[in-house]
């Protein structure tokens, strides 16, 4: 489904991603954990080229996003319209929700299907209502984002990304900006999605979510994938010292 290979990303001379390769199978939920600054978010943003990268390629269902390889294996950047079209296949939910403040909830969800994919308005709006029902916000159809709580805004953001029928969904620390009380409702929506067979990459600090929902956990540090494996294995008997250290510190902090 998703195939990232050899991604290298530099900010100036600082290498944020140092040759990261990640494959995600259809229907799989991969949770990426790791300390701040390890490159998790950057990796996610490279998938749909919100962040440019200097080496490597990304493919979704075999189709390149962002860069193609020519006959001599030289990377060629796709044109802007091609990139825009490729981005439709990838849904992303951001830490800061990023809803459009000048549009109602319904418009936020329906605008891209209507304007980008050309779906007739009644159909797109019906689908938007269905998605809102799915995330439990049917009563907020005509509200503006500023009237919603963070948890509600984030669920709208999930519905907005789903409305484009993406092949894969990316979640970038989507609960980090939320009050602890509101985290649960967002995670519940994501659990439901995973159960329904959506292909997902989730960057998060919610270890219990990782443990319950992930098919595979990936630990990143210093711009590389240090270890990956099944959640049980990763959380109970990690192979690398770095992961053990990270989890210990995490547990110490949350044991209260």
């Amino acid at each position, binding site marked *: 489904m998703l195939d990232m290979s050899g991604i290298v990303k530099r900010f100036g001379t600082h290498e944020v991603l140092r040759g990261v390769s990640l494959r995600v199978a259809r229907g799989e939920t991969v949770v990426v954990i790791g300390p701040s600054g390890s490159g998790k978010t950057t990796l996610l943003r490279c998938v*749909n080229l*919100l962040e440019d990268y200097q080496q490597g390629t990304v493919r979704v269902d075999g189709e390149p996003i962002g860069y193609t390889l020519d006959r001599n294996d030289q990377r060629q950047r796709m044109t*802007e*319209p091609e990139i*825009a*079209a490729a*981005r*439709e296949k*990838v*849904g*992303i939910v*951001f830490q*800061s929700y*990023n*809803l*459009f*403040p*000048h549009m109602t909830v319904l418009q936020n969800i329906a*605008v*891209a299907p209507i*304007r*980008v*994919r050309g779906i007739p308005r009644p159909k797109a709006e019906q689908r938007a209502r269905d998605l809102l029902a799915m995330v439990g916000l049917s009563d907020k159809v005509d509200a*503006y*984002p*500023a*009237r919603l709580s963070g948890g509600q805004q984030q669920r709208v953001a999930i519905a*907005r*990304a789903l409305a*484009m029928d993406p092949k894969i969904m990316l979640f970038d620390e989507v609960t980090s900006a939320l009050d602890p009380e509101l985290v649960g409702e967002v995670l519940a929506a994501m659990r439901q999605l995973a159960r329904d067979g959506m292909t997902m990459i989730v960057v998060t600090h919610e270890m219990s979510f990782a443990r319950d929902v992930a098919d595979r956990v990936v630990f990143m540090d210093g711009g590389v994938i240090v270890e990956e494996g099944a959640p049980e294995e990763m959380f109970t008997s990690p192979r690398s010292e770095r992961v053990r250290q990270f989890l210990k510190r995490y547990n110490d902090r949350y044991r209260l």
Partner: protein
Amino acid sequence: MKTFAPLLHSYWYLFRGAGMTVLMAVAAVVPATLLGVLLALTQIFGSRASRSAVVGYIFIIRGIPLLVLLTFVYYLLPLTGMDLPPFWGVVLVLACYYAAFMSEAFRAGILSLPQAQWDAAKSLGMRRHLMLRIIIFPQALRLAAPPFVNLCINLIKATSLVSIVGLWELTMASREVVERTLAPFQIFVAAAGIYFCICYALALYGRYLERRVLVDH
């Protein structure tokens, strides 16, 4: 009242001058706004060369008094062989002059939107022109509205300078009346009052727009 009453007839003349002022301002605001948007977009998205050209233009315009520019064009235009009526010549100068300032207002509005809004729009597969039209502009316009209204008010007041190149409008009309009536106080108080009313009405309308149409939801 005695001092003003004999001049009632003259006031009618002033109102006609005011009509001309408004006409000139409207004729200049429209192209100034369009050019301002164009300059702002060029400065944000243009090639390196076109960006420098716009920056240079803005610096030059900012560094020259409008009065000097008006006089310069007044003498220069006939030499170029362009047969432009003085009214349109003045409108052209006003438009080019205020476009430079408006472009800065629009640019600030666009750039002050968080990067996150662009990211969200891009991630939904929007191409640049669609993204600008339905996501960026509606929000940037709200941010740019107060400085924009301010510039429109400045432009209206700046039309008073064009009497220097012989164009007839409210200020010129006032001077003519004063020469006839020798009542500068009464006449210029009236002229100032008319200018104030026009600008104040515009300011109120700007406020109304901000509150009602461009409200922050």
